[in-house]
């Protein structure tokens, strides 16, 4: 029988209930940090003027992200692109582990809400920084006329909830559909469908999260 719950699976560490998704995201973060430290010492410290191999891939990723961000937010890209890339890496790695049979950490609304709060903080810090303090930010909020200011504040406050619920619902629904398919045809069909729901869908959601961060930032600094 299919079980769906909004509450995170309990998991105890030293007698404290922290939830399974938190422990999984700790493990993913440990693996990511180890891998990135290795990359730093093996590739970044030995950068060559003519890139080869891994350096090529890294430069393509960082440069592609930077150019994408520049097209959306202009001169704020130096500040926003690393934040957006970090969020995207975190979400992608935490969701793609579903391929290895582990429950994804983003299948918990607390995790996705944390992502939404990160975006909210990024948007407001960038807005304050690039519009010249609180005064400029408030002027930006009452842009066409001061009447719309409450509505724009409400839009800004709803943005993290919207990001959280979108990511959570998409990942949860992907998981439910995969469980249903495993129940119907456990042999060949899941391998075909998983290539969409566990790989491509994760990529799309990661892309959407990065795009939304950039778009909200560009609204805040315009």
């Amino acid at each position: 029988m299919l079980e769906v719950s909004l509450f995170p699976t309990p998991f105890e560490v030293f007698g404290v209930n922290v939830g399974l998704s938190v422990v999984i995201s700790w493990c993913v973060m440990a693996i990511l940090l180890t891998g990135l430290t290795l990359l730093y010492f093996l590739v970044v410290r030995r950068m060559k003027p003519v890139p080869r191999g891994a350096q090529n891939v890294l430069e393509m990723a960082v440069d592609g992200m930077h150019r994408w961000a520049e097209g959306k937010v202009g001169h704020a890209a130096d500040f926003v692109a690393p934040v957006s890339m970090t969020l995207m890496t975190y979400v992608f790695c935490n969701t793609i582990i579903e391929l290895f049979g582990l429950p994804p950490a983003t299948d918990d609304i607390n995790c996705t809400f944390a992502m939404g709060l990160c975006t909210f903080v990024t948007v407001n810090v960038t807005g304050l920084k690039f519009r010249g303090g609180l005064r400029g930010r408030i002027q930006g909020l009452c842009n066409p006329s001061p009447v719309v200011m409450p509505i724009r504040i409400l839009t800004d406050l709803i943005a993290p909830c919207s990001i959280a619920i979108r990511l959570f619902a998409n990942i949860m629904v992907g998981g439910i559909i995969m469980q249903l398919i495993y129940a119907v045809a456990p042999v060949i069909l899941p391998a075909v469908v998983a290539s969409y729901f566990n790989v491509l869908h994760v990529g799309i959601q990661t892309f959407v999260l990065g795009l939304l961060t950039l778009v909200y930032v560009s609204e805040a600094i315009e």
Partner: protein
Amino acid sequence: MTLGIIAIGAGIAALCGAGAALGMGNATGKAVEAIARQPEASGKINSSLMFGLIMMETCAVYALLVGILIVFILGAKA
């Protein structure tokens, strides 16, 4: 009896898909027209279309979430 009413509720939640589909079809059709008129602006049109589609998809996903919660959480209680 209660289970039937819960199923009707989930069906009503799924009606949101009609609205999202209308919006998506309208937006994509207009974008295709715009690209046909001005093929050199296709990059900008595509990125705005993508943002709009994400917003509409969000609306449909909310309905999906409501439907799933109705079926699995209310349905398990009934």
